[in-house]
């Protein structure tokens, strides 16, 4: 279970991390007994930091995100987060019975925002993701990229200090994905959010993150970490991005190759 640290008596927060993952392991009951999916993961996300978790299939990166989100409990270890994190999925997960604006308002309502403020706040958030005027649109009337931006606005509506993103752009076409990378970088800089972003796309990881964490597969362990010093705004085609991506891809391939040698 993700636990929330107690706030100090004067209301100021005494938290020096957005997420703290300590010696976390997770196993599931499988056909061959207990299957270890995550093995002794220790990772901190600093306030305002952008971290990508990178790994091939079966590295348990989505499992780890679910644990941080509090949707599942670790088998061993401890996870602490600064407040309840917001979570964005690969599928937009917007509720089709509500308009774009009302989807955001539901998050505000569940977060305890007073009724009178919700509409204005929802409009503000739509403007932040550059969807002014889409308040009354139904989900099916929006394109894939617009849906993910509404989903992002809904996640931001939760006013969380940590945003968890589970391959949120994987199902989008390359041009839309590029644009959303720019938007995410802009919004991250504007809001000061901490982001833990899961992907299997090396370039995406390098394009976005301050720190790239590579997980090995079966079981997922932290294989290596890179600090990305390339200044933002970056583009996915930039030479330094490509260079670092190449280096990381080599290590990732090495990790994957080990599974073929039995």
């Amino acid at each position, binding site marked *: 279970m993700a636990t929330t640290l107690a706030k100090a008596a004067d209301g100021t927060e005494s938290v020096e991390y957005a997420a703290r993952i300590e010696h976390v392991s997770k196993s599931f009951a499988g056909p061959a007994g207990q299957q270890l999916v995550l093995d002794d993961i220790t990772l901190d996300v600093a306030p305002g930091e952008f971290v990508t978790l990178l790994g091939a299939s079966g590295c348990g990166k989505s499992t780890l995100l679910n644990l941080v989100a509090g949707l599942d409990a670790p088998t061993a270890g401890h996870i602490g987060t600064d407040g*309840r*994190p917001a979570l964005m*999925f690969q599928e937009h*997960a917007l509720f089709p019975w509500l308009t774009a604006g009302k989807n955001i308002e539901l998050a505000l309502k569940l977060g305890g925002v007073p009724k009178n403020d919700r509409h204005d706040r929802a409009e503000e958030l739509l403007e932040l993701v550059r969807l002014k005027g889409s308040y009354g649109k*139904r*989900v099916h009337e929006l394109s894939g990229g617009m849906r993910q931006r509404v989903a992002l606005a809904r996640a931001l509506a939760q006013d969380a200090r940590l945003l968890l993103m589970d391959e949120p752009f994987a199902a989008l076409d390359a*041009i839309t994905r590029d644009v959303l990378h720019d*938007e995410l970088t802009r919004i991250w800089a504007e809001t000061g959010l901490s982001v833990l972003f899961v992907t299997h796309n090396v370039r995406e990881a390098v394009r976005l993150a301050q720190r790239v964490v590579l997980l090995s597969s079966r079981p997922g362990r932290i294989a290596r970490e890179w600090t990305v010093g390339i200044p933002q*705004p970056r583009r996915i085609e930039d030479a330094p991005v490509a260079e670092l991506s190449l280096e990381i891809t080599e290590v990732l391939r090495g990790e994957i190759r080990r599974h073929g040698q039995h």
Partner: protein
Amino acid sequence: MASTETTDPTAKPPVRDSGIAGVEAGLDALETTAAAGTSFRQTFVNKILPPIVAVAVVLVVWQALITFNIVDDPAKLPSPSDVGNEFKDAWLEGRLLEYIWTSVSRGLLGFLLALAIGTPLGLLVARVKFVRAAIGPILSGLQSLPSVAWVPPAVIWLGLNNSMMYAVILLGAVPSIANGLVSGIDQVPPLFLRAGRTMGATGLKGAWHIVLPASLPGYLGGLKQGWAFSWRSLMAAEIIASSPDLGVGLGALLENGRNASSMAMVFEAIVLILFVGIAIDLLIFSPLERRVLRGRGLLVKG
């Protein structure tokens, strides 16, 4: 939302806006298409004309059977004008609306009762494992039991009165409504539940904001079927249990026609039963269902 404790290791340089707003606006415009409205002419040609033609064809064939003496026994097949006269007389004597109202008021009241019982029952079966294991299979089995089978026991238990009619309607409609809600809830995508949970919609809040609206299409399907079952059960009950105290509904009209060997009256009753069943569906359930499905983009126009 701005975190105040951001310090050196996480300092971010300002992001320059590299004209992506324009690209984004272009993408948005390219990827959304405006839905074109349909004109009345199109609606008429596609939706209204075909059933009118179908009814006309039936009438022509019917009249032809009489005109060409293919069926020449009016006790077996009355002419369309005989049946028309039956309608006209019933209308002039003020009986027509009385027949319809007797049955429709019973049917709708029975349906509302079934709704009030079937909805909580469906919720219980869907959410409580023990209840589902205990009565789930019986509930879906009951759907395949013809509700006319309940008429004899209902008459014995309750006598020839309105309560017996309602009992038969309930036994026919409650399983449909409950099952519709159960399958609606079962089909709620787990992703919605996870999304709701991360937003803090758990327990009752989750049921109210996520589970119930998400299961609405399945529930409406159940209601539609529940009405069809209500109507059928009621007709069965009215045909079998006719008594002067019960007034003359459509089922009783059918039975009266048989007793009087008046095929025109039998036809009149059948046409009315069919008409009411279709009218209620077209006026209440179909628009409701269409609205819900269209709002969610689950209905393709055309």
